[in-house]
Structure formats: structure tokens, C-alpha cells
């Protein structure tokens, strides 16, 4: 396998853009990434794109084809990757695998999304054989209820308080004010978070991320190509992995599962992270910072423990002592995370690659993790899809 560089990254800001098409959002991100990489569109040999269920893609998730038509049809291959909310991370992994394996020297990885208003239906299938359909019709349990159930279980097991949950959101927004691409760039007090409406008890409105529009792009290439480009300021892919949930996972995805023997929820994320770290030859303690999928404050507490960054029940203490801030011992989501951006579902995995790249270059300004050398990003999506990428300076 060859070394792979992230040569350039670019983003369209996150927000609600009713006047703009998803293709326009993507074009802005792609042009910025090409510019950052110092290469032209004609040098791109293949595209791996996140497939969206909500916007563009001709209704078939052909989002990469939209981008190629818009940028100029050069005849290059397009790979449209579908993995629910993990599609952006999945597209990065496929692009990385193809460059590392020698199939292409220069690949565009892209994810763009315009989301419908309000809470989304997790599954698009209305059939009695679909477990998501059964759960929602027979129980009335939509996607965010999972976050609430996981969170309540943590509160019962570790004594996590409502104040501690709110502090995760307060911390995220302290950082998000410094990110020009973030949708929400305003600080919240602990009282404001605790007074926000209960949405899915015990989770409040400001403790879960809404849906957003956004687009992100990354140009990845072989080491030889990176050396040929004079202006190159690459960071390097140390590990990239995808995984699916294990059979003995303790989180029932449909109506039921097996009572597990251990404490494993979201095994898809844990497996992907473990594999990416192994490829990087790194331990969790070697990581200088992490971008994780914080659809809700719960994940920022649970995932670092699930992945061995800290011990079970320690996350609240690290949060409250400031160690999860960019300047702390275990920086989590120095971008501001999903809480500050909102979730443009399939674009999120590529958004994380942009943040990792800026952090590793030392270009993250007031939210910079000091001397960042090694960073991890993680997504998960419907179907039990998990992705992880480790980038290094």
C-alpha cells in the first residue's frame, strides 16, 4: 500500500441556504479544495462521493455525477458511496483505498447535503419487513429516542447529571464561536441550555444537533504526486477504516436484539476506530485530538470511553476540568462539532477531514489544538455503518 496525502480541503459554510442548490454548495467546496491543493479539475482522476437520500443525485444518490457534470465532464470514474450518515467517511475510505492501492494518483472526495426541515425519518422504507418501520409504527420511537435511551442508561450507570450534559453543549459553543464555517456561532450559558425545551428526555433542544445544509471536499493523492506539486502542504493518512455493527451489539436497531454479555453500543464505530488506530500504529493515548459524531452531547461523553481514550465514567470529570477543550489533555471536537454545525448528514465525514487537516497544519486559529500531530475522525450511520480516519502531520 502506498502513502496517501490529503493535498487540499475546502468547505461551504454550514447553515440553511434555501436559495442555493446542493450542486452550488458542492462546487464552492470543490473549487476551494482544488485551490487549496494547487491542482486543476482536469488533474482529478476519479471522484468518490457521499450518496444523499435528501438532495441532488437524481434521486438515486448519484451525487458524484452531479458534481462531475457541473465541474466539467472529463470522463472520469465516479463512485457514489451510500452509508447513511456515514457516507462521507465511507467515501473518504474508498478514495483512500484506491489511491493507496495504486488505482489512481489523485482523487476528489466530496459530500454535500441540503436537508429537509425538522426531524427526519430514519428509514425511507414503509414496509412491514423493515425493522425501522416496525419500531416507529408499533412503538413510536424515532431516531433521536436512541440517543435519549443511551443517555438515560449512562446517567443510571455513572451518575451523569443534567448539568454535565448541558456543559458539553456549553463547551461546544465556546469553540464554535471561533469557526467561520459553523452555523451557530454564539455562546450559550449553562442556564440557557438547561432551560431549552426537553426534546427527547433527558436530552434538550440545545443538546442535540439540528439538520443543516453544507458541503465539504478533499483532494487526496499519492506521495509521488504530492512531491511534484510545488505549493503542496500535505498532511498524511495514517489510517482509514470502515466497519459495520457486530451481532452482539447491545443497542437494538430494530425491535429487539440479544441481551449482551458486555457493554458494547455502536460497535461499528469502535471497530472502525480500533482498525484505523492499528493501521496508524498508534494507541488511543497517542491522539492529540478527536473529531467525533456528536449528534448529541451523550456521544462526547461515551465515545472517548468506548475507544479507550479514557476510563469508563471518567469523561464527565475531563469535561468539567476543561480537558476536552482544544488546549486540554483530550481535545474533543475542536471544530465545534455537529452541535455547532448541525448535521448535513452525508457531508459530515468530509467536513471532519477538513478540520483534521487545518488542525494538523496549524491553521485553526483561535480553536487550534497546540502542536497537533495526530488526529482521529469518526462517523456512524444507519445500517450499522461506522467509519474512522487517522491523519498525521
Amino acid at each position, binding site marked *: 500500500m502506498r502513502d496517501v496525502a490529503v493535498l487540499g480541503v475546502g468547505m461551504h459554510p454550514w447553515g440553511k441556504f434555501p436559495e442555493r442548490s446542493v450542486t452550488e454548495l458542492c462546487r464552492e467546496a470543490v473549487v476551494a479544495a482544488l485551490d487549496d491543493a494547487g491542482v486543476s479539475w482536469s488533474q482529478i482522476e476519479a471522484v468518490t462521493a457521499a450518496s444523499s437520500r435528501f438532495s441532488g443525485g437524481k434521486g438515486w444518490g448519484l451525487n458524484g455525477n452531479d458534481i462531475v457534470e457541473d465541474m466539467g465532464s472529463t470522463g472520469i470514474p465516479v463512485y457514489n458511496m451510500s452509508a447513511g450518515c456515514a457516507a462521507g467517511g465511507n467515501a473518504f475510505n474508498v478514495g483512500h483505498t484506491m489511491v493507496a492501492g495504486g488505482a489512481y494518483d489523485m482523487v476528489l472526495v466530496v459530500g454535500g447535503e441540503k436537508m429537509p426541515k*425538522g*426531524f*427526519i*425519518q430514519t428509514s425511507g422504507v*414503509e414496509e*412491514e419487513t423493515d425493522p425501522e*418501520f*416496525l*419500531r*416507529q*409504527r*408499533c*412503538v*413510536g*420511537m*424515532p431516531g433521536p*429516542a436512541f440517543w*435519549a*435511551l*443511551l*443517555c*438515560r*442508561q449512562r*446517567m*443510571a450507570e455513572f451518575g451523569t447529571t443534567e448539568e454535565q450534559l448541558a456543559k458539553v453543549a456549553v463547551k461546544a459553543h465556546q469553540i464554535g464561536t471561533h469557526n467561520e464555517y459553523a452555523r451557530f456561532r454564539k455562546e450559550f450559558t449553562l442556564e440557557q441550555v438547561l432551560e431549552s*425545551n*426537553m*426534546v*427527547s*428526555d*433527558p*436530552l434538550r433542544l440545545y443538546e442535540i444537533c439540528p439538520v443543516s445544509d453544507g458541503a465539504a471536499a478533499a483532494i487526496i493523492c499519492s506521495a509521488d504526486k504530492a512531491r511534484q506539486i510545488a505549493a503542496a502542504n500535505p498532511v498524511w493518512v495514517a489510517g482509514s477504516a470502515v466497519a459495520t455493527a457486530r*451481532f452482539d451489539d*447491545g443497542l*437494538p436497531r430494530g*425491535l*429487539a*436484539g*440479544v*441481551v*449482551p454479555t458486555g457493554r458494547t453500543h455502536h460497535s461499528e464505530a469502535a471497530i472502525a476506530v480500533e482498525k484505523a488506530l492499528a493501521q496508524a500504529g498508534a494507541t488511543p493515548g497517542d491522539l492529540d485530538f478527536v473529531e467525533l459524531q456528536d449528534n448529541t452531547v451523550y456521544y462526547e461523553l461515551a465515545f472517548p470511553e468506548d475507544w479507550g481514550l479514557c476510563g469508563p465514567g471518567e469523561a464527565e470529570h475531563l469535561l468539567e476540568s476543561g480537558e476536552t477543550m482544544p488546549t486540554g489533555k483530550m481535545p474533543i471536537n475542536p471544530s465545534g462539532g455537529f452541535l455547532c454545525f448541525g448535521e448535513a448528514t452525508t457531508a459530515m465525514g468530509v467536513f471532519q477531514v477538513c478540520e483534521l487537516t487545518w488542525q494538523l497544519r496549524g491553521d485553526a486559529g483561535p480553536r487550534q489544538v497546540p502542536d497537533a500531530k495526530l488526529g482521529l475522525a469518526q462517523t456512524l450511520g444507519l445500517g450499522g455503518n461506522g467509519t474512522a480516519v487517522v491523519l498525521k502531520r
Partner: protein
Amino acid sequence: MTTEGTPVIEGLFSETADGPRLVGSRCTTCTTPYFPKSSLCHNPECTESKIEDASFGPLGTLWSSSIQNYPPPPPARYDEPYEPYALGVVDLADGLRVVGRMAVEDPASVQVGDRVELVLGPIYHEEDGTEAISWMFRPI
């Protein structure tokens, strides 16, 4: 309790002489329980899929709970005006971890670790007024 209504979806539960049960299946090789029924065992460590009909319940422990504070999007259904309800994940004594609505007056009264039993009850009404019946869990 169920005589007036019709199941939300047919074939997921039954009323027996001993009370309500969830209708599923179990692999006799590896003892994995399935709800709803599965025609094959999906346990990757199982040596041979041997599926038998099985019923589950009524007793279990509440692994976690939440309150559905906002009206859920389709395909969920609910009666107007919307009233928040409690949701639970229950570990049944027979090895099944299953989701269900909680049959309680006050959603906030539910506690993780509660002993619960399986009951049947209406979760919404059809347009003609028929009760739509589903499985639920009630603290005991």
C-alpha cells in the same frame, strides 16, 4: 383490554392463557432469540441455523427509558392532541432486549432498573375509532 382493538401490525404478539406474549423464534443450536420471527439464525458464531417458533415475556428489567416529548415523524402515528409518552428498552428474562412503549400514567415515573411486565394496549386510534393495539411494558 385488547378485545375492542386490532393489532397495529398482525403477528407480533398474542394473548395466551398465561397472558400476552411476544411472538418470535429461537435458534435451538445457539439459543439466540429473535423478535420478530427470523427464518434464519444470524449469529456469526452459530454452527447450524435451527429455528423454532418461540414466545417471549412477560417479565423483564428496564435497561433504559426516555420520554418522547415531541410528536414523532411518520411512519409513527399518534392521537391528537399529542401527549408525550415513555419509551423503554427491556431486558426480558428469556434473553431478549426489546423496545416498547411504557404503560404508565406519568411518563416521568419510569425508572431504569424497574421490574416490568408485558401488557397489550392502544397506542393510537384508527380513523374509524378502532384502537390500534401494540405491546407495552408496565412497572410491577
